[in-house]
């Protein structure tokens, strides 16, 4: 195995940006196929209304809000890795953070579509924004849904700015490694960066501040998403545990998604094997174990509080979840989120790449189901037994969900070919610099 040097890090990353081959093209066709079906289903739904989804009374939130929370959760790991792990100087961060940040941006872009899709009449989405108008219809600042509008839009802005800021030195590197038109194109976003002491000084200070600002944002955004539920007076939702429970769940699912995309990336570009080391993936696996235990604890506390509070509606709901009509989803969720991640305690499993990949897929499925169970069961089983209902998703929701994966992976596949998917400058920082006097 070659020793990593400043020069060969550049070469490996530049090689990953060569024109795409057949596997990339085939994958892209499948991705665009999925996306097209999603767009088609959405178009049908816009034409005919939400009757084409399974949303009904009383289950007014369904797969779309599940997907919204799921994708926001996925988006959390990127900022956690790029900001929180930067502040604590976690050694496994450097090789994986760029792709994780890209994942964050694309996941939040995907999540942002779902409130619009769920709205039905998408063209009224601008009513969410507080702007002076003559309709006398005003946004309600007491509503957590409006807080969410601010939280998500801030998160999108900060994630994108953080992502772009981190890219500047690496785009300058790609510019210097390129010729002709490619060089000219990369010189624009590189913003004349040439690695001078003045540029690094202000860049590094700004980057540190970004990390410090983004850290509380990671926790605040998913807390606010959780309040969309927790501030409703509904059994299974109205709980003070929701904010930490959702944040842990978001980090849990995000870390799993990082493994889901980093492992194929590492395989697709052989040069990355020396950069994305097994111990980096193992670090993510440890984070998954940690957050899985928090999530498991939160599940247990929910049931205990339902029993201990003596609130009969709460008890009824928490009986309905494991033994009601959605019990299959519930037990699959428990298996994926609480039992399967425990296998990562075994070092042989958490350092085995195929096993890590499979476990990460299970966690992704489990975390999607968690949101589905939270949304579906509580709305179906509220305070009034005569108003209880049920929910069954329809084909439009299935295709829009699949289409959302197409949308996410389309951006990611484009990203790996046009931008450096490994943070070049930060990887160089981890190496011993070239020294004449090596003592």
């Amino acid at each position, binding site marked *: 195995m070659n020793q990593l040097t400043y020069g060969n890090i550049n070469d490996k990353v530049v090689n990953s940006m060569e024109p795409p081959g057949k596997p990339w093209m085939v994958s892209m066709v499948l991705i665009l196929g999925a996306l097209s079906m999603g767009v088609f289903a959405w178009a049908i739904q816009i034409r005919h209304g939400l009757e084409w989804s399974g949303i009904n009374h009383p289950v007014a939130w369904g797969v779309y809000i599940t997907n919204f929370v799921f994708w926001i959760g996925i988006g959390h790991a990127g900022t956690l890795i790029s900001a929180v792990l930067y502040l604590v100087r976690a050694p496994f961060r450097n090789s994986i953070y760029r792709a994780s940040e890209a994942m964050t941006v694309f996941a939040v872009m995907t999540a942002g579509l779902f409130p619009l899709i769920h709205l039905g009449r998408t063209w009224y989405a601008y009513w969410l924004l507080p702007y002076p108008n003559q309709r006398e219809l005003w946004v309600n*600042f*007491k509503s957590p849904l409006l807080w969410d509008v*601010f939280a998500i*839009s801030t998160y999108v802005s900060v994630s994108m700015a953080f992502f772009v800021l981190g890219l500047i030195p690496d785009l300058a590197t790609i510019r210097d490694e390129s010729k002709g038109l490619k060089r000219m194109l990369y010189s624009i976003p590189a913003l004349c960066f040439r690695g001078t002491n003045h540029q690094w000084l202000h860049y590094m*200070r700004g980057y540190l501040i970004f990390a410090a600002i983004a850290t509380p944002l990671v926790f605040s955004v998913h807390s606010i998403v959780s309040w969309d539920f927790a501030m409703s007076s509904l059994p299974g939702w109205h709980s003070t545990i929701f904010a930490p429970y959702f944040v842990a769940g978001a980090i849990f699912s995000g870390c799993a998604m990082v493994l889901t995309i980093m492992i194929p990336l590492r395989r697709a570009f052989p040069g990355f094997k020396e950069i994305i080391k097994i111990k980096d993936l193992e670090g993510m696996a440890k984070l998954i174990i940690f957050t899985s235990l928090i999530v498991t604890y939160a599940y247990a506390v929910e049931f205990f509080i339902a029993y201990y509070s003596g609130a009969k509606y709460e008890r009824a709901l928490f009986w309905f979840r494991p033994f009601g009509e959605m019990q299959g989803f519930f037990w699959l969720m428990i298996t994926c989120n609480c039992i399967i991640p425990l296998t990562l305690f075994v070092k042989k499993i958490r350092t085995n790449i195929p096993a890590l990949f499979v476990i990460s897929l299970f966690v992704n499925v489990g975390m999607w189901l968690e949101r589905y169970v939270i949304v579906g069961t509580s709305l179906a089983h509220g305070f009034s037994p005569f108003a209880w209902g049920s929910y069954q998703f329809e084909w439009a929701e299935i295709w829009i969900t699949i289409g959302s994966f197409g949308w996410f992976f389309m951006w990611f596949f484009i990203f790996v070919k046009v931008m450096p998917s490994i943070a070049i400058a930060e990887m160089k920082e981890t190496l011993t610099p070239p020294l004449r006097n090596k003592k």
Partner: protein
Amino acid sequence: MRLRKKFSGAWATFEYLDDTCAAIKELKNEGFDLITTHTPCPRHEIDHALGDPQSRVPFGTLVGAFIGFSLAVLIITKMALYWIIPVSGKPILSVPNIVPIAFELSVLVSIYFTIGAMLLMVMIDTWKHPVPQSRKYKNYDRFMRDRFGIAVACGGQDLEKIENILKKHQAEEVNLES
């Protein structure tokens, strides 16, 4: 008005970081302060050799945070009082309602101010420390790969002295411009 000052001085490239730092220290000791260095990644050794300069970018962040916070409080207060929406006996305006949005807007505005401050500071420093204008310097493409560089602005009478210092510290190549 010229955005770049005319450059007179020398620039050199180095293979090793310790040679670069030693050259910077000697140049500083000799009284040459208009130094610009190039490194493929941020290195604290260079900062130490340059005398640990500090960045004022955080002031921009602070100003942005205050503006964002004030904007949030203003928007919510004004709108809540102008368009009163009674919701199940809750107060029309209360602190808990303001906190999430005030936090989010403080963060949002502060990051834009941080970016603005970074760009401004880099532009000011680059203007204060002129760099060579030659095509050879502009087209040198190994600074972001694996080479370290030093550009020193000085009067024509000091060129020889600087050249000697750079060569003494094993510079790969030294270029003089006046």
